[in-house]
């Protein structure tokens, strides 16, 4: 009964299949085909990009070394109250001796040592030293034997660190990345003289914004000129704009140094012209100014290209129309031309800002001490300290900051308002 009434309302094909089913079937084949077409690229990106990044990000919370290498110690430490201020009981020392013997045989004790050394300097050598002795430990009174091997084992702080990092997951890297640490009174900021990451995040953002703004200020007139020139001369100019892409980093850096240093071309010229005194030469490199100049130079094309492609599409008749209605050159520019280039500014700004926020080689080379970015510390932890967990945590924070800014941008400007061409 219901079927019948249903059949009356549903359109069917000649074969009696409901029309909707037939359509979706036909479309499904189309969809499948397009999915298959993008599948290779999708897989490539997944394998070569998404998975490694996800793996790297996972390291920011992962902590397998301590529970994996010292399983008995971790269990034994559970009964010890780390806030009591007292030494752990003999069972803990015994468990550690057993764990260390296994670890020394597998040569993994120094890895735990260097992992814990990130949190408490000195543990690396403590484990290294004790590792040499533990083979000769005898049964009974492990506490005394450990203390004899190194008196640092009598430091409650060492045991607190081990207990704090005994779970397979940790927030420790993120705390460190936020200049915080866990103390007896809960999570607190580190002492003033050890805080660096939040400060660097702030500086990275401020400098990136500054670089973006200088790119807009410098790039806008150039893009305007490019878009209004005939094709032949604009192509030539475009090559000049793209030139920084084609020079190697070392050549560029040397050029900046020759130009910007205190005995460099610009200062020499200014002194020669009498604009600055010989004893008050300008510091243009190895500081924030150097970073801003060099980064603006290298990122300028990313601002100019989207601006250019947007400006190219703006017909000159808009300006003429505005003028015919009585607008002065400036008023016409500001009310008619400029608003139409905002999508270009938006696209260029996003590109420049996101690129500059992750830059580290240029700041390292010309930034001195006041011009380095958070990425320089990430690079340090990747290549020198091998503290990849902290590097990953800093990376996640940077990613979150970028996402939040992107979201804000979308809310304020609207992401549809971005045009690359």
């Amino acid at each position: 009964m219901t079927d019948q009434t249903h059949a009356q309302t549903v359109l069917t094909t000649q074969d009696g299949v409901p029309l909707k089913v037939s359509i979706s079937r036909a479309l499904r084949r189309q969809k499948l085909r397009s999915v298959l077409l993008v599948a290779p690229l999708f897989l490539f990106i997944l394998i070569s990009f998404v998975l490694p990044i996800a793996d790297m990000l996972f390291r920011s919370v992962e902590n397998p070394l301590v529970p994996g290498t010292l399983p008995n110690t971790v269990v034994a430490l559970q009964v010890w109250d780390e806030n009591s201020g007292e030494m752990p009981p003999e069972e803990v020392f015994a468990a550690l001796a057993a764990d260390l013997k296994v670890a020394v045989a597998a040569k993994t004790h120094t890895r735990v040592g260097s992992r814990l050394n990130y949190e408490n300097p000195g543990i690396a050598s403590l484990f290294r030293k004790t590792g040499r002795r533990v083979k000769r430990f005898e049964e009974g009174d492990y506490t005394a034997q450990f203390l004899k091997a190194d008196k640092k084992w009598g430091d409650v702080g060492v045991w607190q660190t081990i207990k704090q990092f005994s779970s397979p997951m940790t927030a420790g890297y993120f705390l460190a990345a936020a200049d915080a640490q866990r103390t007896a009174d809960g999570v607190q900021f580190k002492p003033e003289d050890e805080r660096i990451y939040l400060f660097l995040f702030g500086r990275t953002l401020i400098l990136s914004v500054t670089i973006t703004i200088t790119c807009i200020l410098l790039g806008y007139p150039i893009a305007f000129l490019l878009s209004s020139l005939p094709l032949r001369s604009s192509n030539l100019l475009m090559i000049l704009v793209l030139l920084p892409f084609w020079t190697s980093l070392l050549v560029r850096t040397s050029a900046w140094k020759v130009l910007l240093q205190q005995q460099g071309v610009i200062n020499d010229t200014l002194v020669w012209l009498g604009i600055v005194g010989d004893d008050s030469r300008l510091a243009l490199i190895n500081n924030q100014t150097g970073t801003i100049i060099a980064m603006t130079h290298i990122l300028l094309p990313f601002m100019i290209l989207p601006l250019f492609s947007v400006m190219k599409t703006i017909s000159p008749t808009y300006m003429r129309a505005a003028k015919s209605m009585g607008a002065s050159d400036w008023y016409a520019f500001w009310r008619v031309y400029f608003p139409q280039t905002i999508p270009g500014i938006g696209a260029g700004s996003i590109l420049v800002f996101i690129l500059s926020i992750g830059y580290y080689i240029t700041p390292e080379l010309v930034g001195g001490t006041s011009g380095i970015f958070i990425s320089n510390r990430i690079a340090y932890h990747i290549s020198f300290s091998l503290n990849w967990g902290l590097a990953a945590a800093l990376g996640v924070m940077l990613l979150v900051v970028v996402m939040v800014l992107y979201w804000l941008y979308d809310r304020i400007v609207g992401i549809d308002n971005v045009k690359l061409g």
Partner: protein
Amino acid sequence: MTTERGASVRFDKVQKSYDGETLVVKDLNLDIKHGEFLTMLGPSGSGKTTCLMMLAGFEPASHGEIFLNDRPINNVPPHKRGVGMVFQNYALFPHMSVAENLAFPLQVRSLGKAEQQEKVKHALEMVELGEFGSRRPAQLSGGQQQRVAVARALVFDPDLVLMDEPLGALDKQLREQMQYEIKHIHENLGVTIVYVTHDQTEALTMSDRVAVFNDGVIQQLSSPDALYETPQNSFVAQFIGENNKLSGTVTAINDNICDVRLADGTELKADKVNVNAVGDNTTLSLRPERIEIAAVDSMENRVKGHIEELIYLGDHIRVRMNVAGNPEFIVKVRNRAGEQKLAEGQDIQIGWFASDCKALDPVG
């Protein structure tokens, strides 16, 4: 000053060259009266748009002076000329709503908010788009955008409005409708309109006077009917309307009538327009609808023609004939009862009055 208020616009010996070698506009002298609808008509590259741009102030004149209400404006920047302008592709600001577009010239003039709203509302009603004020230009159809552009050029009550091929982007039907609308607006407001187009129908339909441009020179400046009926030279005759050409030599001149012998020996009489002396080469211009297939005795010119092709067009039939060695000779035959039956390959007698045949300067 013979007229009451003087001319609205005067071009005085204006010349224009972009490269310093060739003149795009050669010695232009033109008076445009107040309230006149003047069309600059001509093929592309004839200099008509350049004239408009000089008038708007976007191109400087290389020589000569342009007057607006008797005031020289060569050194007045475009935004101080107070001239409304409608552009080919409307140039509506895409980032503003229709109402904001219309308010733009009023804001520039620092009008009060209430006055702005009043004028915008009025202008929108004038072009029958009262409901569309809050839309973006991209949400309107081509015809609607065109109306907004016209309204925007008029909203600040300029004395003079320039229109640069404003209907070029519309389809035929819309274009015709817009022609009437613009014409009516002109009649109602009484502004001076200088209108540039390459479409002769548009020019003939709308204008008080038409200036036909070619090669940087005004070939003829007259009312639409005069332009059609009495072209001053071969270019105008060919450019405006359909036209049969017959080449020959002047053999005699009697007052306004001259005798012309064609290459095949045919002798014809024609209205002497643009020939000077016996022996001059001339091109005779003859409108297809002025030729009769049933020639009456009073017609001075009667010749034999061979029908090459008949094209049925409903209200009339186009007959392509070979007349006096010209195989592209077109005759329009009204489609009415009692007309003689025609067939391809037939030889018939055709004729026309000497006054309908203009002896003009030779072509080619």
